[in-house]
């Protein structure tokens, strides 16, 4: 029995053809067992999303939303977007968000893959693996609000990093770009989301048959060749799942970009949040629908490259 408690997109749907005694109550049982979860998703996900779609076509004023059909909210989102020379707010915002997606993806993968590899292939005991994983989760128990604030004393103009570098004589003037820049935003993202990359990749690696690797070595492959032509291809599902996590998390973020970017960098989530706080629900809903469409398109694109359903 394996017990490493990790999220893994296992091949459960494939298991649906389980042999089962055909007695009547037994047939009904699975429905009862799945019903509570289905109910939660219907009430707190499906209906809210449909309502969001509906309200995005409503009108509003300062203090109420008015059920009348209008396309104005979408017109506002895309206003001036025909002009390619001077992109509109929405295009700019999405470009900036996409940039962070790409950067975060690259770095979480670069960090996450070796870490997962280390945990999967070099740590021999399951107990140690689990302990190391838990070691990685402890920092997440301190509220993110507090952790965000603590980047300032670490990266600021007179922060720990700059002070250390200065006292070591590496630099003369503090590096300004450490904080409130693309760098700091990416850094915070990598800090937050690498775990979401490590776990699925680790899970893919854990399922690789060790004899395959032995076979590759026996056939004379070097370590790198084995890694590249055996391990990496077999990790594709894990990488794909990690990518989906990271993309979604970065696309929808509004706290990290705000704090680490010194409130100067736009993000789609931030736009939605500002509109919400100014009670412009329909405008926020329209933006949310566009965001959702963008995210779904990216994921569909991913599933084109890797057949997720088959890999799962």
């Amino acid at each position, binding site marked *: 029995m394996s017990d490493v408690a990790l999220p893994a997109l296992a091949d459960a749907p494939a298991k649906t053809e389980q042999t089962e005694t055909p007695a009547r109550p037994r047939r009904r049982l699975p429905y009862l067992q799945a019903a509570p979860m289905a109910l939660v998703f219907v009430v707190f996900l499906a209906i809210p999303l449909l309502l969001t779609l509906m309200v995005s076509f409503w009108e509003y004023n300062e*203090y109420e939303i008015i059920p009348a059909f209008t396309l104005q909210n979408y017109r*506002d989102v895309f206003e001036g977007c025909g002009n390619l020379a001077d992109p509109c707010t929405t295009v700019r915002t999405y470009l900036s968000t996409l940039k962070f997606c790409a950067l975060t993806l690259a770095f979480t993968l670069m960090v996450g893959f070796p870490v997962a590899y280390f945990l999967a292939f070099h740590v021999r005991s399951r107990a140690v693996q689990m302990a190391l994983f838990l070691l990685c989760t402890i920092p997440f128990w301190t509220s993110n609000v507090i952790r965000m604030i603590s980047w300032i004393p670490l990266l600021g103009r007179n*922060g720990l990093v700059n002070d250390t570098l200065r006292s070591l004589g590496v630099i003369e003037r503090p590096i300004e770009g450490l904080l409130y820049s693309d760098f700091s935003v990416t850094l915070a993202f990598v800090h937050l989301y690498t775990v979401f990359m490590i776990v699925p990749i680790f899970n893919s690696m854990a399922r690789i048959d060790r004899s395959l690797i032995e076979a590759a070595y026996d056939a004379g492959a070097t370590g790198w060749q084995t890694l590249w032509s055996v391990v990496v291809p077999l990790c594709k599902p894990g990488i794909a799942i990690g990518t989906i996590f990271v993309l979604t998390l970065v696309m929808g973020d509004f706290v990290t970009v705000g704090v680490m970017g010194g*409130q100067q960098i736009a993000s789609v989530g931030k736009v939605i949040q500002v509109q919400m706080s100014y*009670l412009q629900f329909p405008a926020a809903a329209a933006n949310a629908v566009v965001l959702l469409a963008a995210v779904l398109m990216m994921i569909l694109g991913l599933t084109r490259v890797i057949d997720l359903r088959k890999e799962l």
Partner: protein
Amino acid sequence: MTNGIKFTRRTLLQGAGTALAAGPITGFPAVHAAEPVTLRYLGTAVNQSGDIARKVKEDLGITIEYIPVVTDEVTKRAVTQPNSFDLIDTEFFSLKKIVPSGNILGMDARRIKNADKITPIFTKGEIAGKAIGDQGTAPKKVFYLEGQTGKSFASSPTEWITLIPTTYNADTLGIRPDLIKRPITSWRELLNPEFKGRASILNIPSIGIMDAAMVVEATGDYTYGDKGNMTKAEIDRTIKLLIEAKRAGQFRAFWQDFNESVNLMASGETVIQSMWSPAVTKVRTQGVACTYQPLKEGYRAWATGFGLPKTLTGRKLDAAYDFVNWFLSGWAGAYLNRQGYYSAVPETAKTQMEPYEWAYWMEGKPAEKDIHGPDGGLLEKAGATRDGGSFEARMGAVACWNAVMDENTYMVRKWNEFIAA
């Protein structure tokens, strides 16, 4: 229902009568101690202090449960979740959204003991007989309601008050004199390229844009009809200026809350930014030089006040009135004054402050003794004077008030464009 309210009001008035006889502070009806009442107090953390809650518990037996949220969230909750609180402490400008939603109840002026002593800044828009700037959502424009459940503001005094003022102040630029090393006299310095990469502005759209408007007027480029109620063209013009400055790298960061503004200045990330007076004080207590700089164009003022949700009835309603009365009776006012805010009824606050404290905080005189904050920490050494001078000098130089514009929706959209630029 209505009869019930009238009945309680009458009894309370009687209670207040006895209270007057008993003494100024502790003489409130002590019924609450017997049957504990809890008031959920929604507001920003600015006015929420453990000391005040403790003192109220002691004096009135009312338990205050604070719900701290960010500025915009206060308005949002008032409009969307009106029974999630028993007492709201919100900015006057948000009334333009809250009152039309019908979610707050006009406060009965007759039940507010010190109603007639509330500073004329609120009731008439003047100080010491002199009119002050009223651009934007000046409190006097939204101070009275037509009726208790009215959805429109009254132009002349009525007995229904929207919000009983808690604190107010005037904001200006905060600077680091040790890093700037020259006098700053105008709002235009905020966008002076000399401070490239070391300036900051407030990222709360409705307030930030007013700071920008102060800069625009200071440069002499343009004079607004009403900075607190711009036309679309004026919004475009202001945002354009901000975008240019942003692209040129003028701003180090934007700040959104008290804590961010303190951190930016204290850590030297910025040397010039719009700032709240107590934030300047906070930077100074950390041993960092920081000046709350009076400017020739004047201040942008703000005010917050207590409101009652329309769902409040019975004993909770009585308790809310008792609490508001207690708040105006002096102790809380003195407490706020010592933090650098101003209180609604200065004369009651005065009775709770030492003469030297009053002279320093309110009259702009040099401190005779060391000045301590409410927590006992040293704020200023003897001999220091308060930036901006006396209460009258500060509030008399107000140019405009925090506001909600008619073109608010458009403004928020343009602000998002500025952030994305």
